[in-house]
C-alpha cells in the first residue's frame, strides 16, 4: 500500500543562524537537540506529542454545556450522556497516542534530482504489533516553507508500508532533508498526536540542465582542444570485450554473451563505433561567457547529451578535473561534481 502526494517542499539549506541567546534560538537549539538527525525513528512515549485539536476544545465546551444542562434540569441520563462522551474522549486520547506509539520509520536513500524538480522521499513505516494503525498522515517540510498536504496511509497488523513524499529541490548542492512530521487524529479527531523526525540522509541536487541545451559544437571548438585520441585499455580486435561495470545494457552482445556465460560466466560488450575513440572534454571555459550557475546548467545538459550518445568525456572545472570516462557511474560522478562545485554549503 502506498500513497503519493504532490507536496512540494524546499530542501534548501537553512542559512546558518547567528549564535544568540534569545529565547527563540535557544528554543531552536533545544528542539533540535531533542530531535537529532537520524535515518530511522522509533516512536515511543518520549517523542510522540499529543494535544487537543480545535474540535477537541469545542467538544470540551460542548461537554460543559451538556453538564450544565444536566445539572439544571436534574437529568440523570444527561449526566450519563455527558460522562459517557467524556470517558470516550479520554479513551480516544489514549487510542490516538497509541496509534503512533511503537511505530518505526526509516527512509530509503533519496535519489538525486535536478534543481527545480521534486525529490521523492520513500518513508517506510513498519511495526510488529498485531493491530492495525489507521489514518496516519505524513508530510515533509517546515512551516517556513509552506505547509504541504498530508499524505495518508493505513498500516495493517505487523506490516510495513511505504509512503512517498515529494520535496521540491530548488538549489544545487547537498542538502539536509526537511523534517518529516507524522501525525494522526484517529479515531475522533479530538486529539492530534504527532512526532517530528529530522532524517539524517542528505539530498543531492544536481544543477538544472539548460533547456534547450546549447549545441555541443561549442565545446568541441574550445581553445583547449577538447578532442584527443586515446587508446583505451582492454580493447579487443573483434570489437567485443569483456563486460565492464557501467556498460549500458544496449552495448551487451547478447548472442555472444550466451556462449561466454556458459563458458566463463561473464557477459561481453560490443566495442563502440570506432576502436579508437576521441575523448571529449567538457570545459568550464567552453560555457563562457555565462555566469557560473548558467555554465553549470549548460555543462549538466552536455553531460546528459554525451552520456546518451555513449561518448567518452571528461570534465574540467576550475580546481577540479574528472578524467574522461563513460557509463552511468562516470555520469553520476560528473553530475555530483557539478552539483558540489563551490557549493553554497
Amino acid at each position: 500500500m502506498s500513497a503519493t502526494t504532490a507536496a512540494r517542499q524546499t530542501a534548501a539549506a537553512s542559512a546558518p543562524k547567528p549564535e544568540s541567546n534569545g529565547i527563540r534560538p535557544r528554543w531552536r537549539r533545544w528542539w533540535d537537540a531533542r530531535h537529532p538527525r537520524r535515518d530511522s525513528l522509533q516512536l515511543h512515549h518520549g517523542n510522540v506529542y499529543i494535544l487537543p485539536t480545535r474540535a477537541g476544545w469545542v467538544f470540551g465546551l460542548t461537554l460543559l454545556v451538556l453538564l450544565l444542562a444536566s445539572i439544571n434540569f436534574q437529568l440523570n441520563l444527561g449526566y450519563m450522556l455527558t460522562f459517557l462522551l467524556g470517558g470516550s474522549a479520554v479513551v480516544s486520547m489514549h487510542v490516538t497516542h497509541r496509534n503512533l506509539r511503537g511505530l518505526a520509520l526509516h527512509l530509503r536513500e533519496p535519489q538525486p534530482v535536478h534543481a527545480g524538480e521534486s525529490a521523492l522521499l520513500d518513508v517506510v513505516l513498519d511495526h510488529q504489533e498485531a493491530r492495525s494503525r489507521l489514518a496516519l498522515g505524513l508530510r515533509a517540510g517546515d512551516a517556513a516553507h509552506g505547509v504541504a498536504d498530508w499524505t495518508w496511509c493505513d498500516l495493517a497488523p505487523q506490516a510495513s508500508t511505504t509512503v512517498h513524499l515529494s520535496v521540491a529541490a530548488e538549489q544545487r548542492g547537498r542538502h539536509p532533508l526537511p523534517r518529516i512530521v507524522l501525525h494522526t487524529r484517529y479515531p475522533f479527531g479530538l486529539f492530534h498526536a504527532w512526532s517530528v523526525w529530522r532524517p539524517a540522509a542528505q539530498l543531492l541536487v544536481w544543477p538544472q540542465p539548460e533547456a534547450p541545451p546549447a549545441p555541443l559544437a561549442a565545446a568541441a571548438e574550445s581553445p583547449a582542444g577538447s578532442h584527443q585520441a586515446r587508446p583505451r585499455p582492454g580493447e579487443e580486435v573483434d570489437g567485443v570485450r569483456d563486460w565492464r561495470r557501467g556498460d549500458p545494457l544496449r552495448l551487451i552482445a547478447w548472442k555472444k554473451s550466451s556462449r561466454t556465460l556458459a563458458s566463463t560466466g561473464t557477459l561481453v560488450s560490443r566495442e563502440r563505433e570506432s576502436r579508437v575513440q576521441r575523448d571529449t572534454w567538457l570545459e568550464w571555459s567552453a560555457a563562457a561567457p555565462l555566469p557560473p550557475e548558467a555554465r553549470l546548467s549548460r555543462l549538466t545538459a552536455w553531460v546528459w547529451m554525451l552520456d546518451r550518445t555513449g561518448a567518452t568525456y571528461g570534465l574540467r572545472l576550475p580546481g577540479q578535473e574528472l578524467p574522461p570516462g563513460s557509463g552511468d557511474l562516470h555520469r553520476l560522478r560528473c553530475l555530483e561534481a557539478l552539483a558540489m562545485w563551490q557549493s553554497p554549503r
Partner: protein
Amino acid sequence: MALQRPALARSGPTAGAPRRGSGLARDSRDVLFLLAVIAWTVMPHASRLPAWCLAMTAAALIWRGLLAWREGPLPSRPFLVFVLLLACGLTWWSHRTLLGQEAGVTMVVALTALKTLELRARRDAFVVFFLGFFLILTQFLYSQSLLTAVAMLVAVWGLLTALVLANLPVGRPALAQAAAAAARIAALGTPIMIVLFLLFPRLPPLWGQPEGALARTGLSGQMELGQVAEMALDDSIAMRVRFLGGERPRPSQLYFRGPVLSQFDGNIWRQGGDGPWLRQASGPQAPIRVQGRALDYELTLEPSRQKLLPLPEATVDTPEISGSVGTLELRQHELQWQTTQPITERLRVLGQAWLAYSQGPQLAHPALREFVELPAARNPRTLAWAMELRRRPDLAQADADTLSRWLLDHIRNQGFRYTLSPGTYGSDAIDEFWFQRRAGFCEHFAAAYVVLMRALDVPARVVTGYQGGELNPVDGYWVVRNSDAHAWAEYWQAGRGWVRVDPTSAVAPERIERGSRLRPPAGIVGGTLTVIDPDVGRQLRDIWDAVNNGWNQWVLNYSQGRQLEALRKLGLEGPDWTDVARALVIALTNLSLAAAVWAWWERRRFDPWLQAYARVRAVLERAGIDVPPHRPPLSLARQLRQQCGRAAWPLAEALERLDQMRYGADRAGRPRHPSRGERRRLLLAAHALVRALRARATVRQ
C-alpha cells in the same frame, strides 16, 4: 543497470476523492449514514415539534440525502441564511420566544437539519456532531425511560461511528469497522462514566427553570371537565409504592391525595386560596385524628414538575424524602403535602399512612361557608332540583350522611353510566350530565356530586389524586399510572369532619374495588398477546415494569441522597458533598494509575526477542552507531566486526546467537526467546563495546 531519474512528483488526489467503486461513493455513503443517525435522533421528538419544524427537518434531510446520492452541489450560503432566518421566525411564531426549553429544542432540531446542507469541511461535520449530542440530551427532558436510554445509546453510537468515519481519510473503510472502533472506545470509556456518574457531586439547579414550560400529564391545580379523560389514556407511571409491613391494603383503600379543589366558577374547579383557613390558623383546624395502625410505605414518585406530593391517605407525619424538593409543607386543612420547588427528579419517599383517619372541624364554623358557594347563574335545573329535594319531607331534616347516601343511591339506580368518552359538555355541564346524558367518568360524578351537595347546603369539595394501582407480583411494588388519576369528593358532617365519598364507585365499583381501568384499545402486538393468553400479556408487562423500576431505582433515582448514603455505607461519618468530590478525585486518580499500569504492561508485553535486540540497538545508538530497525542482528554483527574490530567480537558473537534463535536453520519448530541470562550478557557486551570505543576515542585525542 541504468539509474532511473526520479520522475517529477506525481500529482494526484490527496485524499477524500470520490471513488466510484462498489455502488455508492464513499463520501455519499458517509453522509447518508450521518443523515440516518440524525433522523433517528430527531424521531422521538416528532410528536412534540411544531409541524413546520418537522416538515423542514424532513425536507432538509431528504434533500441532503438526494444530493449525496447524486453527488450534486450543495445549496448556496445566502439561501441557507434565508432558511435559517425563516426557521427563527417560525420558532418565534410557534413559541413566542427563541429561548426557553421548547423553543430551544425546535431551534436545535432545525439547526441540525440545516447544517447538514452545509457539510463541506471537517469543521462543518464537527458542528453537526456536537449539535447531535445536544439533540440527544433534549430527549431526556421529555423522557428518561429505559427505552429512551437504549434508543439514545444507539444514537450516540451512530454519531461516534460517523465521527470515526470522518477521521479515516484513506480508502473506503467499512461501516462495521468504524462502528466496532466506536463501540470499543465507548466500552472502554464506560468505567470512567460509571465512576463519574456515581461520584460527581449532584448540585441543585443552578438557575431557575421556567415553570410550566414543560407541562406534563399528571395532576394539576385545577379541573375542567374532560381533562382527566386525557390522563386516563396516558399509561405512563406516576409512582410506585411498596408497603413495608406484612399488611397489604386493598386497592379500594389506596387514595393518593392530590390538590383539593373547592372553588367552582361554573367551568373550572380550582384550589381554594389560603384565605380564611390560614388566617385562622388556631381556629377550626382541629388536628387530624388517626386510628388503628399506620402502614409504612416506600414510594418512588416520578417527576411531575409540580409542587405537590400525592401521598397515600392519610400521611400525617412528615415523610422522609431523598431528593430536592425545597421545603415540605402540609396544608393541614386540605391534608395535602406541598413543596416549594417543582419536583424535577424522581423522589424516594418513606412515610406512614393511616387508613382510618378524620380531619377538619368537628363543629360548624363560618369558614365552612366557602364550601357551599356555587355560581348562581349556572346549572339552574340542578339548583332547582336540589331545592325541590330539600323540600321533600324525608330529606328536609336529613344530615349530610343521609343526603350523601341518597345521592349515591340516585346515581346507582338512575341509569348513570361510566365511560371514558362521554363527549363534550356545554356550559351547563352539570345539568346536562345529571338530567340528560348520564354518562361520564370520575370527574363528572365527583363534580356533579359536589355541586348537588352544595345545592343541598352541605359543605363539599372535590379531591383529585390517584386511586388504586396494580400490584406487580415480580417485585412487590404497586404501580400507579397516570391513567389511575381520579377525582372523588368530601363532604362535611358535624361531629365527623370531612368524609370521603367516591361517587364513581356507585356506578363503576370495579373501578374502585379491583382497580380495573378502562383501557384504550391495545396495539396489534398487545392485542394478539391478549387474545392468545391474557396472562402472558400481563406477565410480560409485569416483568417490563420490574425492569423499568430497577432502572428508576438504580439509575434515574440516583441523587445526592443516594450518593451520601453510599459514602455512609463505606464508613464515612456525616459525609457532605466535599467528601463526594474527594472520593471522585481519588477514583479518577486510581483510574489514571490503572491506565498507566496498563500502558507499562503493554510495553512489557513486547516480544522478548525484539525487546532484547531493541535494547542493544538503543545502547549502540546512544554511542553514535546508527542501527536501522530493520537491520537483522546478523547483519549488525558483521557491521560491528568491520567498524570496530576486535572490541566488537563478544557483542557480535552474542548477536549472531540471537539471530540464530529466531532465524537459525537448525531451530526445531518455533523460534526461541533469549533467556534472562542471555539478555543480560547481550547488554553487558553492548556496554563493554561502547566503553571500549570511548576509551579508544580518548586515546586518539
